[in-house]
């Protein structure tokens, strides 16, 4: 099980300590702490309302925590998020791109916002890699859900981010498209990023096949807490199960347990 204390701080790209978010009486995230190592692919798992999206929003600096600290690439994401934002990106099926802009126009806007060199070339590369070259002139709003997912992923990759946060990256995709996207993400994680270490991916997903295939590390959330963590294979072995889905169900249906941070 990874621990902040055992890692070289220089390897840590995300460091979260005592992160808490309260909305009125509701405690969405309850004092979680974790670190993510540069070049790793980490899965953030949990049922609906577990606190995954809230955690990602705080990692992006879009949501200010009630308590705790978040450092991404060394930058405090509450006070200095603009130091990290140019080197990270994000995709989520719950946030849209403007429907009345064409795919090219949408990606051009983001190429400008992220100050991408040779934006036309970058857009063409992504369109080819994610198989939407034929859609470039279409209005984003006229695309199918699966096509939108691929374009949104291209938006998230436009700046070749060192840290990529993905919420349900293959939602709405057919199995063939989902497989291509996963393969692309695997290649991206291996070949991109800084210092020859590959890019870091943090993926919130309900798709256990995807998580098992892509992720080196898992953080399991339940009711705002991290209740377990480990490698996919290690967790399957530890729970004595055949698949990650069975492990997930065991955790989701278990009685409340102490958070994983509190365990020895």
């Amino acid at each position: 099980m990874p621990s902040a204390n055992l890692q070289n701080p220089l390897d840590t790209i995300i460091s979260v300590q005592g992160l808490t978010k309260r909305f009125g009486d509701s405690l969405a995230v309850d004092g979680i702490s974790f670190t993510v190592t540069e070049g790793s692919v980490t899965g953030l798992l949990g049922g609906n309302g577990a606190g995954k999206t809230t955690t990602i929003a705080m990692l992006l600096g879009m949501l200010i925590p009630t308590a705790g600290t978040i450092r991404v690439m060394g930058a405090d994401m509450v006070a200095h998020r603009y130091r990290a934002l140019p080197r990270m990106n994000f995709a989520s099926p719950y946030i849209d791109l403007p429907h009345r802009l064409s795919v090219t126009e949408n990606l051009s806007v983001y190429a400008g916002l992220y100050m991408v060199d040779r934006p036309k070339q970058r857009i063409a590369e992504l369109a080819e890699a994610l198989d939407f070259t034929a859609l470039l002139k279409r209005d984003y709003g006229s695309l199918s859900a699966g096509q939108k997912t691929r374009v949104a992923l291209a938006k998230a990759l436009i700046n070749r981010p060192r840290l990529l946060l993905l919420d349900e990256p293959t939602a709405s995709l057919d199995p063939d498209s989902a497989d291509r996207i996963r393969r692309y993400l695997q290649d991206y994680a291996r070949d991109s990023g800084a210092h020859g270490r590959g890019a870091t991916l943090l993926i919130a997903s309900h798709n256990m096949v995807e998580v098992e295939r892509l992720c080196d590390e898992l953080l399991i959330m339940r009711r705002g807490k991290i209740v377990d963590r480990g490698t996919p294979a290690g967790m399957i072995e530890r729970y004595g199960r055949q698949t990650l889905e069975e492990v997930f169900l065991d955790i989701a249906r278990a009685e409340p347990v102490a958070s994983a941070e509190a365990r020895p």
Partner: protein
Amino acid sequence: MNSLRRIWAMVMRYWYLLRRSVPRIIDMVSWPIVDVIMWGFLSQFLAGNSSYIAKAGGVLLAGMFLWDVMSRSQLGVSVGLLEEVWARHLGHIFVSPLRAWEWLAALMLMSIFRTVAGLAPAVLVAWAMYDFSLFDLGLPLAGFIACLLVMGWWLGILVVATILRFGQGAENLAWAAPFVLSPLGAVYYPVATLPLWLKPIALAMPAAHVFEGMRGVMVDHVFKPDELVDAALLNLAYLALAALIFLWAFRSARMQGKMLQMGE
């Protein structure tokens, strides 16, 4: 330089939207034309029945045009936010490196374009139908327009701050704000017409000074630079106040997660 590139990217985002949307172009151009036709006929009627209008032909049309500058400028800023809310797009732009002030700067630039593009056809209609030229106001016209553009900006920023703080339910303010303020703007009548207790409130508005200045040029044929200076100083104070309120509302929206929640 990076800021300019991001501001330009957002200007292009709104330009792409505008140029592809016939309803938006019609909305931008048609209302000033409808206004000018109505106020033109009213001016013609009153010219034969009112010594004041007879003395200063076009004073109502000039008032209408200049108040439209303020209204269009305000709408240019506040509708910019609403376009992002309607598109469920806020979450993407505010996890990009775009600073809040850069976004406001892009909205202000677009508001200048929308104001000029919206009013230019109406200026031509007024010249063709009523032989009225706004440019007869001479050089002071540039000062009047600049002051009203800036008033539109700070009013728009206040509307944006209100929507960020209280949510989409406050969106009607974008259209209502100019109507609410117009009685105090002394657009069509001198400040002296107002009851004693309302005069200080009206004189606290930059618009009242602009329109007093406009009537000075058109009715008394005297340019009163002190009115323009008062309007400019008031604008500076309100712009600074609106910026502070916006920053507070923006932070509040980040506290409450409004960037993720707002949208249709």
